[in-house]
């Protein structure tokens, strides 16, 4: 099976500091993957490179069935190609209602004139309601997003990602600041999403990663240190030394 996203030999430096060092990592079309690693391991920079925010110094980022390169594409082009990104801090449009937030994210033509002449359709309405139901916000469609609780905002943002109908979801610390029940629900949403698309979760919280029950990639100093299921990587001596060992010290 060909890969959805192939990152190979990518390096990037900021003022001489190598944030990503010859990183190679692949994702299948439908999989759930967790990326863990200590602070400064390059997790966020990796997402910045894939989504076009940061240009790497060298290496290749190859996407999709047609094997196109994502390097040189703008953030909005990459998003239209089917890569969605959720930020660590929930960033929803607080002034606007849940429905408006979802409508903006819904997969539709993105040009100014298409948007200006956009008409509300029953089909779009049904899609919005289906997504709102999935993230548990069906009753809150008319509420301003600013009124939502922290966990609800996180779900709304995940819902906006789903509305984009991306083939790859990059999710940065979805469980941060959530209660235990909220975490369980978030896990369910992500696992369901991963049935039809690739979902990559960057996470600090080992308990949350264990609950995701998926393949784990450990990053360290900008490259892959270990890969496999959680028990496999946590028993790896190098991983214990650089990450687990240090955090337990």
């Amino acid at each position: 099976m060909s890969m959805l996203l192939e990152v190979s030999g990518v390096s990037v430096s900021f003022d001489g500091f190598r944030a990503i060092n010859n990183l190679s990592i692949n994702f299948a079309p439908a999989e759930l993957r967790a990326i863990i690693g200590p602070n400064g391991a390059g997790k966020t920079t990796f997402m910045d490179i894939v989504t076009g925010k940061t240009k790497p110094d060298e290496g290749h980022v190859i996407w999709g069935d047609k094997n196109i390169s994502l390097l040189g594409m703008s953030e909005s082009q990459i998003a239209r190609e089917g890569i969605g990104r959720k930020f660590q801090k929930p960033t929803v449009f607080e002034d606007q209602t849940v429905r408006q937030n979802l409508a903006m994210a819904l997969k539709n033509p993105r040009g100014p004139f298409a948007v200006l002449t956009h008409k509300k359709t029953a089909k779009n309405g049904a899609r919005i309601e289906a997504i709102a139901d999935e993230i548990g916000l069906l009753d809150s469609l008319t509420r301003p997003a600013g009124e939502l609780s922290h966990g609800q905002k996180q779900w709304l943002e995940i819902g906006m990602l789903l509305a984009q109908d991306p083939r790859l979801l990059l999710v940065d610390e979805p469980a941060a600041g959530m209660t235990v029940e909220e975490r369980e629900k978030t896990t369910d949403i992500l696992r369901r999403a991963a049935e039809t698309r690739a979902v990559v979760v960057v996470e600090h919280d080992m308990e949350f990663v264990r609950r995701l029950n998926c393949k784990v990639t450990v990053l360290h100093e900008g490259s892959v240190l270990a890969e496999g299921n959680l028990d496999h990587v946590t028993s790896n001596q190098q991983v214990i030394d650089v990450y687990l060992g240090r955090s337990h010290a």
Partner: protein
Amino acid sequence: MRKSFLSENPSVLWFIAALGLFTLMVTLLSEATGAGLISTSFVKTLGKTLCLCLIAIAMDVVWGYCGILSLGHFAFFGIGGYAIGMWLMYARTEGIVLESLAGQTIPPTPQEISDAIGNQIFGVVGSSEFPMIWAFADSLFLQLLMVVLVPGLLALVFGWLAFRSRVTGVYLSILTQAMTLALSLYLFQNDSGLRGNNGLSGLQNIPGFEGTPQSTIAIVFFLISAAALGAGYVFFAWIVSGKMGSVIKGIRDNEARVRFLGYHVESYKLFVFTITAVISGIAGALYYPQAGIINPGEIAPIASIYLAVWVAIGGRGRLYGAVIGAAFVSLLSSWFTGGGAPDINLGFYTIQWTDWWLVLLGVSFVAVTLLFPKGIGGLFDYLVRKQP
């Protein structure tokens, strides 16, 4: 669709009703068409105020809704004024010249007529040659096209360069100030082709209507300005409602997020910047025939800053707020600076409002920004909330 747009935006209907009522009242009280209780000069002031309201809603769309603090939109207003002013001056001078040459036994050649018009218009800056930019001045249609095209193209090129380089925030504001300052300084030069610091004058005289009294011309321009404001209001309300409104408000609140949703943010900013510049040009083209004169001082950087102050005091992010702010502050400004407000004698010092008005305006601006960030328009929120 139009029906659903209006039913979802009842404030648009309220605004149009209020504007219609106001227009009717002024028409019935004016000298030309009514009881004569409102002087012609005040009709002109009100007509000009409506044009300022029109540019204020444009400013509100670009700043209050899209988050681009442009401090250069008065440049587009001025360009609109100059574009229409060129035709007004040319056509009127042509009429005068033809009349004075009519008595000659030998009919004047076209070159003689052209020289005589050039002499009349550019004598004041020591020239009689028509500069290139006056090539279309004899055509009302082409100059009306300029009212729209020149501000639109300038905004398109400027905006493309600025937004493409992702210039945002205060840096963009400074760039727009530089743009309006550069334009103003250029126009101050005698060889700019637009009569330097003299500007264009006599614009209140409309060619072809020499016999029509100013009182009638004033009320006609007032009505056109009111119609333009009403149309502009509906147009902008349509732009900022629906999905387009969602996207541009999203750009204001979190540009990066909108980008990662797959929207090409720069195109949207360029669209908003350009469309508001075009409307500003139209507002200027209606304003200056009522003012009678335009000179480069009109597009000095301070004018665009005032515009931002009006919108801030009226209330950003709501179109009627911009209208209230522009009308309230500009009328108050002419009252204070025109000697309408009585001086306050403190015994040891006399507060003369012509000098102190700017201080009062500055203090109100700071106070509104700090204490009532929603501006005067925010009062409507309380009214609406009180209803059951």
